[in-house]
């Protein structure tokens, strides 16, 4: 049964992939994240997260980006089923 749940980036499991649905934030935040290639419709994979509300690292296209916990919390992602 396909999952159609939406998560924040901080809630995703490590290794999980998802499509960015929305960035909950002001124009400034959206702009900064967009500039790094993170925007609605983009497929990303969570690589790691630090303990104690540390930054989350994701893979987006050919690049890896580290995002502070608070910012990551505002990125809403819909997980995609692993093709395997």
């Amino acid at each position, binding site marked *: 049964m396909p999952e159609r749940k939406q998560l924040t980036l901080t809630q995703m499991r490590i290794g999980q992939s998802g499509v960015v649905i929305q960035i909950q934030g002001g124009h400034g935040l959206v702009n900064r994240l*967009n*500039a*790094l290639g993170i925007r609605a419709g983009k497929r990303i994979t969570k690589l790691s997260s*630090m303990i104690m509300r*540390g930054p989350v690292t994701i893979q987006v296209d050919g*690049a*890896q*980006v580290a995002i502070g916990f*608070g910012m990551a919390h505002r990125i809403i992602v819909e997980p995609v089923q692993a093709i395997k």
Partner: protein
Amino acid sequence: MGNPNVGKSVIFSRLTGVRVIASNYPGTTIGYTQGFIKLGEERAEVIDVPGTYTLEPTCEAEEVASQMLDTGDVVINVVNAINLERNLYLTLQLLEKNIPVVVALNMWDDTRHRGIHIDLDKLRELLGVPVIPTVAVTGQGIKELVENIPRAISPDSPVRSRDERWAAIGSIIDQIQRVTHRHHSWFERLEDASVKPLTGGIMALAALGGAFMLIRLIGESLINYALDPLFNNLWAPVLLRLSNLMGGSGFLHDIVIGKIAGGEVNFIESFGLLSAGLYVPLAMVLPYVIAFYLILGLLEDIGYLPRLAILMDTIMHRLGLHGYAIIPTLLGFGCNVPAVLSTRILESKRERFIAATLISIAIPCAALQAMIIGLVGEHGGQYVAIVYGTLFVVWIILGFILNHTVKGFSPELLIEIPPYRLPSWRATLQKLWMRVYGFLVEAVPIILGAVLVINILYFLGVFNAIADFTAPLITGLWGLPKEAVTAIVIGFLRKDVAMGMLAPLGLTAGQLVVGSVVLTMFFPCIATFVVILRELGVVSMLKATGVMITAALVVGGILNLIL
């Protein structure tokens, strides 16, 4: 111009022959560098611009980039071929401006083993400007790039909104790029491991511990096996002969050679231009400068530093900074001047103030460290450890206090992490040479000047007057002999020389520890002072100075009571 960490500085070096510091992390270039190339008969000026993701700047380094755009006639837009989609956003913004553009598609060699296929002709057609594949580190494609600079054109793109630009990029990428599947490389497994809490923590400890041990090993070996023998066996006899020629004493003799006790030259305590004036910079400091910048250069070029920033982020937030501030801090262990400059990669003025203050208080530069290790280390490694331990505690506590007293909040970390790369020895050694050369031409004259000034002031008796005046502070609070004030005063010129001035005073190990800590914290050296003033303004400078003096008084006093 281009995104951060796409190789702009390397291309710039290739085009102009001007050597610039290039590293494998975003934000290496924070100001701009100029150089010239020959285009046919004409000589054209080329400017290396700091990296930026958009023309809507988010930090000071990016602001510099946007401003530079207005001064150019042609833009060489350097684009990262392995991350084309995101890089094209800036390209489209540039095409909307009324300025001719030529695109250098850099890191072209990386596309193949990453399974990325790009249709160059189609890309040229869609963008409407020349697109040249390049591999800047090897020089491939640079000739073609130069030939195409006169062919740069401005295609007069309509001005689009943000979403329209992304839509246009999406359609370009669909038409020109194919990505095929490939397996995870060994490097990428290492990359993943270094940003996970457990493995990353272990790797960070190993990297920093290893770096520290290597620096000491290289520095000490250079001193023991090369420079000390050189000075003791070759230079000392020359000085002794010269001393005899000059009559063995007198004002001029003391300035040039220094006091010679018992027919032997003690290079630190004979405080002359040709004794301590050469020995301190060349035989004590230079070895550690070489060792430090070699290891730092390797860490930079491998691409490790941004990963360290992620690991440190949580801790740094307690100090009012985010993880990326670890990069200026590490640079500070080399020299505080580039460290303060590189705080430009931080977003807010508040962060820059906190970072610059913490660096100039608690981070001793390589020159000062070399002297601390050399002088304090004679009494045993535990005393060196006390100095570093104290400074570390000061760094944490002061950061904590600043975070709670300076208005504002610390922004969140948002950085791109570069892939690991094997450093090329040529590039790393070239960077090492630039930094060592910088030390030689900037530090050595000031050190000689400081030695000269010290001797003249001694001769005129100025120091005795100051010493009597400040005795309550120096002796009462810090437990140092009153003559130590001369070192504190000279610390404003060069802290390594100042540290050397403590040597003839016959201090106990405890006093040396107090002296080292106070010297590090009390006041920035003049070069750092000027940079902080220029970067942060008068008000912030005064605040930072106030913090420094207070902290040095308190910490020096506490240490004196404990030791």
